[in-house]
């Protein structure tokens, strides 16, 4: 009788153990596959956004550029917008359009010289400093450089998913 009990205990542990093992083995590829965007982050690249002289000194304009490696079915979401401000002959500042409060898209009001957020009323000055409302930080910026008379910006992850944003 004792032998039977031991045998049963062994068989039930064996069955449960094998099932758990099978589940664990199966979940490795599944979890890795689901996390692949984190395991293989995209490499950010410089993107051309136009001639230097396309932009007037003192003006802020919206420009769009292609994400570093969009999926073929990304459609319009393959692109991202940003606000590009020409501060001098060779000086440019590029702002993310995402409000630092919760990420809604800020719009440039040329006459008022302010960025306004439509969601919770965040306001920023032309240089990205917070002017009013709930945003905790200035507008995040992109790196800008000039190459052969063309303005280029360095792509970056969506500002709101980065800790160091702003």
């Amino acid at each position, binding site marked *: 009788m004792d032998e039977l009990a031991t045998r049963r205990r062994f068989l039930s542990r064996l069955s449960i153990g094998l099932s758990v093992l099978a589940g664990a083995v199966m979940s490795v590829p599944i979890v890795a596959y689901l*996390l692949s*965007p*984190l395991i293989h*982050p*995209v490499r950010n690249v410089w993107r051309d956004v136009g001639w230097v002289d396309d932009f007037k000194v003192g003006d802020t304009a*919206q420009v*769009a550029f292609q*994400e570093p490696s*969009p*999926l*073929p*079915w*990304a*459609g*319009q*979401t*393959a*692109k*991202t*917008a940003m606000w590009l401000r020409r501060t001098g002959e060779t000086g440019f500042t590029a702002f993310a*359009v*995402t409000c630092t*409060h*919760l*990420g*809604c*898209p*800020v*719009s440039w*009001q040329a*006459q*008022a*010289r*302010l960025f*306004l957020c*439509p*969601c*919770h*009323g965040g*306001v920023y*000055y*032309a240089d990205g400093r917070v*002017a*009013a*409302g*709930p945003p*905790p930080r200035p507008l995040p910026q992109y790196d800008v450089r000039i190459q052969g008379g063309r303005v280029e910006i360095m792509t*970056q*992850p*969506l500002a*709101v*998913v*980065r*800790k160091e944003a702003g």
Partner: protein
Amino acid sequence: MRLLRQAYRWHDRLGISSTILPIVEHPVPRTNWWYVFGSATLVAFVVQVITGVALAFSYVPAPNSAADSLQFITHEAVLGSVVRGIHYWGASAMVVLIAIHMARTFLMGSYKFPRELNWLSGALLFILTLGMAFSGQLLRWDQDAYWAVVVAAAQAARVPLIGEVFAQILVAGQTVGGATLTRFYATHVFLFPALMFMLIGVHLYLVIRHGISEPPQPGDPVDRASYRQRYADLLRREGIPFWPDAAWKDVVFALAVGSIVLLLSIVPGPPELGKPADPTIVPADPRPDWYFLWYFALLALLPASVEDWFIVGFPLLMGLFLLALPFLAPSGERSAERRPWATAIVGLSGLAVVVLVWEGHMAPWSPALDVGPLPETVTGHLTGDTATGAQLFDAKGCHACHAIAGGGGRRGPDLTEVGSRLSRDQLVSRTLNGGRNMPAYGAALQPDETNALVAFLEQLR
């Protein structure tokens, strides 16, 4: 008829008369109309599954096609607009029904011994229902949906330590793009429904196992030692078969809700399809569907100093409260008449949600960018500097935050009579330097523009 009876006898190989019948005819206490919301939620879920499967026959979960497939469903497929309408209004119905069912269960103390697990499985179903509501509105993949993902990621990113990873898992990478929509699609149509089917199975099993809670009587507390025996005695004394004596109320109510959903899905029908998601069209005015407007409003009204804590803490505390409730008060009084705190919690939460949904709808904290020019009654008699000032008031966006004579934004103070409140110097100083929640306009105004604007404001009395 004879054929039917024969078929039934043959079918009894399924064990209908020995297994299923006793379950559907099991005795239940005499209940009232407050007990119909759980079954109605289940019916709403089934309707969502059926219409959801139907929609999936045509919907293409890719950013380059989602909008076109939705146009097809809404405007070309036969009765597609009604199917989309049922799915949309059914979602609203399900959110309302599960919320009322939950409030009812809480108010009547039905979560107490021995039904703690009924509550826990129900609480998880409530959270999943909200998850379905959120992921569902994203599948419309319009501007609102795109920015809702960004806003959700921004909130996820505020979680300490794992926030960044959490946000990236949510959007499937570093930016919202092709992988994001398929992620929410798979979650909405496979992952969450599978979990819900499982939990609904557990929930229903538990309802049968522990029986429907009897309507509570004040002064008749739940006592663990004696409850089961007293419940069994009650059923023997005055129990009625669930089917059809009690179930007819469920059927009538579910039919009523279903009819309302069907009517709404025809008139007004599903919501108009917005502009397809396009991150390069920045002027957008994203709003969540109504069931999240209250949260949208809360995030606008909170003081900035507590925001980080709130964004992480509030959902966590709500979840913890729901899961801890049956352990915090597993026995004792069930009647709402003897539980003032429970009544207050439900009453105040309900009131808060209604008020906040309204506030979120009005969004007085947002500058009214679409506001028109000042009315003739304000500007008609103006000349020279004051007329220029009035034009500047429109052009520089002042009107977007300040109302004059009834029109304009409500973000800042109404300026209809500001000339009698503030002196010229005060007006100049506020305009140039800003104030509490007003931007400084020093850099945006030339000296003569400032003079004109202030002259206009001064004569507003």
